[in-house]
Structures are given as structure tokens and as C-alpha cells.
């Protein structure tokens, strides 16, 4: 049973099987992606951290002579992410934003049975099927989304500038003019942080019928 976690970030771990013959291609794809800026993902601003990792079937840690050797047919392609918002919206963004969809098609193309990031239903079924439940999750700032953090960091540097430009003996009227102008300028970054997200039931259920217990 998946433990539920509070806060604006939701963790997800997806492990898909991948035929070992695709390793060279996967290494090449990962190498190319390491040099891309992923501007679309940054603009969407809903992922705190993510990673893709190829675990070779014969390279799982073997730490004791008593440990049985795993005999697997497939490598593991591991995807972990911490995202903002409900699961459905996250997967929708994957499938419906062209730039993201194209990237995911490349990354998961070598995973067995991957239906493509579009259309949504088979894609969601695939992700849900290969998702693994978490036992423990900790987030240093559960009340903050990626946008909250980006706003706070931007505000922080502007606040530093304002504080540096405010002498201790400034005239009250002059201070009030600058203070109002400053608040006007930073108002878009002053939204509340810490509100807990309420998951809204989606008409297209996030757990497909055939996977419900």
C-alpha cells in the first residue's frame, strides 16, 4: 500500500524493463540529454528533482558469497521524480506538451512495451503499472512548489538590493515612496507558501480499471 505524503511535492519511482541489447543506444541517448538545457521542463516548473538511471542486469551489487546471483532477462531503467501537483496533471503534462513528450519518447523508447507518451490512456496505464510504492519519503520544504522556490530566490536578491539602498536615517516620506514602489515591483513573487495541496478527483481515473484491486 502506497504511503501518502503531505506537501506540494509528490514522489514517484518508475522501473521499466529494458532488453540489454539496447544499452549502447540508451547510453547515447542519456549522453545527448546530459547536454540539453531542457528549457521546456524548466519553464513548466513542476519538477524539483528527477533522474533516469540504467541498471545493468549483471551489475546489481553482489556483497556476500551467500547472496544469490540475480538471473534477470532485462536491465532496469529507473526513473525517479519529485513533482508538484496531482499525478494525473503531471502525466498529462508529459503527454500533452510537445517538447516533453518527444523527450520522453526518446528516453523510454527502449523500455519493453512502451506505448509512447501519446495517446494518454495507454501511457498512463504503462506508468501506473511500473510505478513502485515508497516506504519513506522526506522533503526539506514540503510547503513549497518549484514556482514558490523560484519566486522566493528572486525576491531574496531584490530584497537584498532594497535593504542595501535603505539607510538607517532615511526620511520617512522618501522611505514610504521607495517601499511602495518596491512592494509593487515584487508583488508577483509574494504568494503564500505552505498551503497543502488538495488532490482533485479526475474524471479519467489515474488507476485504470484493469489495475484496480
Amino acid at each position, binding site marked *: 500500500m502506497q504511503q501518502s505524503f503531505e*506537501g506540494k*511535492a509528490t514522489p514517484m519511482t518508475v*522501473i521499466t*524493463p529494458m532488453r540489454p541489447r539496447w544499452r549502447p543506444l540508451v547510453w547515447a541517448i*542519456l549522453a545527448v*540529454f*546530459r*547536454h540539453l538545457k531542457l528549457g521546456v521542463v524548466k519553464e513548466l*516548473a513542476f*519538477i*524539483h*528533482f528527477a*533522474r533516469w*538511471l*540504467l*541498471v545493468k542486469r549483471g551489475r*546489481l*551489487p553482489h*556483497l*556476500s558469497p551467500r*547472496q*544469490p546471483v*540475480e*538471473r*534477470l*532477462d*532485462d536491465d532496469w531503467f529507473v526513473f*525517479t521524480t519529485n513533482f508538484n501537483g496531482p499525478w494525473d496533471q503531471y502525466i498529462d503534462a508529459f503527454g500533452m506538451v510537445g517538447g516533453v513528450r518527444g523527450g520522453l519518447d526518446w528516453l523510454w523508447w527502449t523500455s*519493453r512495451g512502451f506505448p509512447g507518451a501519446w495517446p494518454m490512456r495507454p501511457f498512463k496505464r504503462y506508468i501506473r*503499472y511500473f510505478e*513502485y510504492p*515508497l*516506504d*519513506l*519519503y*522526506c*522533503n*526539506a*520544504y*514540503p*510547503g*513549497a512548489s*518549484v514556482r*514558490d*522556490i*523560484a519566486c*522566493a*530566490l528572486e*525576491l*531574496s536578491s531584490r*530584497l537584498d538590493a532594497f*535593504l542595501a539602498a535603505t539607510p*538607517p536615517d532615511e526620511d*520617512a516620506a522618501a*522611505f514610504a515612496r521607495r*517601499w511602495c514602489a518596491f512592494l509593487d515591483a515584487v508583488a508577483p*513573487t509574494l504568494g*503564500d*507558501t*505552505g498551503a497543502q495541496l488538495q488532490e482533485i478527483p479526475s474524471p479519467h481515473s489515474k488507476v485504470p480499471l484493469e489495475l484496480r484491486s
Partner: protein
Amino acid sequence: MSRVPKPHSFLTALSPIDRQDDAGGARLAAIRAALAAHTQYGSPFRECPTAHMVRMQVIDALKPAMGDTSGVHLRSAWLLCVAELDGGVDDFLDALYRTDPDFVHATWGQCTGYPPYRGAVFLRRYIARCRMGGELPYAAFPASVAQVQAAIARKECLGALAAATQGLDDAAAQAAFRAARGELERPTATRPGGL
């Protein structure tokens, strides 16, 4: 790795858990119990100042490809630890061990190959053996945990001050600003997980 800001490091560790141990699988049950005993807000990771996000999960059955009926199964269960950190992994492990050595021994200490000794150095060496490399990482922002928490605290403080000074005359607004200036410059440190 142009997408990953410098201060961040990523830990992915897979540690085997013996299913056929002398106690008939009790180690796996003990690890599950140790993980279940900690809530999101009561986990020792909250005391690790360099940890952005940490997850632990037991993988005891691998899902086959859809339609695959070959029956391939895992001979060991695996404890997966995924962490996004500031600075080095060893600093995080040291902090974790210092915070709650019993948690370490109740989880990784039950895994195959963990040495029967106490000390952070053994945790570091064990995780080094379990660590998986070669990942493609992504991080949304280039700030440390402390920077993020300070920035959020300043934002909250400024928001409260803006609301409090609304409608005040110039002198009263300036006095309120002066009273809050110290907190705006150096916000009170917040415990990880507190915001």
C-alpha cells in the same frame, strides 16, 4: 551536466536483502517495520541539513513487461535509497548516522553484506558499494537547502510586513520596517521540513 547546478549531488543506492536468511525472512520484515515506524515528519532525514529530498523503498518483486509470463523473479529483495543532496554524499551519511544510528542499523544494517560494526565509516563504505552511477539528473534550481529555506522565510516575513504596513502613515510604516529589518536580513533558521 549543464542542467544540474553545482551544489547538488545525487545518491542512488541499491542494497540487497536476503530472503532466505536464518530467521526465515525476518530481515526483510524488520526493514519494512523500521521504515513504517518513521513518518514523513519524524524521519531522521529531517535532521540532515544537506538533504533536499530522500526516499526509501523496498523492491521485493519486479514487475515483468506486460504480457511476459516467463516468471522471472528477484532472488533478493532490494532496498532502494534515492536522495538529492547539497555537497557530498559522505557528509549526508555522516549526518544521518550521527542523527539516528539505530535507524541505520535497522535498515541498511539488516541488508546483505553490512558489516557487524557500529560507526559512520562503515555506512559510508557500505553505501559506496551499493551506489549506482551514470544517471541523468535534473534539478530545477541552483540553491542549497539552507538558501531555499532562508529565501522562503524571508518571503513569508516580507509578505507579513507588507500586509501589516498597509494603510499606515509614512512614519509608522518605516518604524514597522525597522522593527522587522533584522528578521528580513537574517531570518530565523527553520528546521528542514518545517516550511
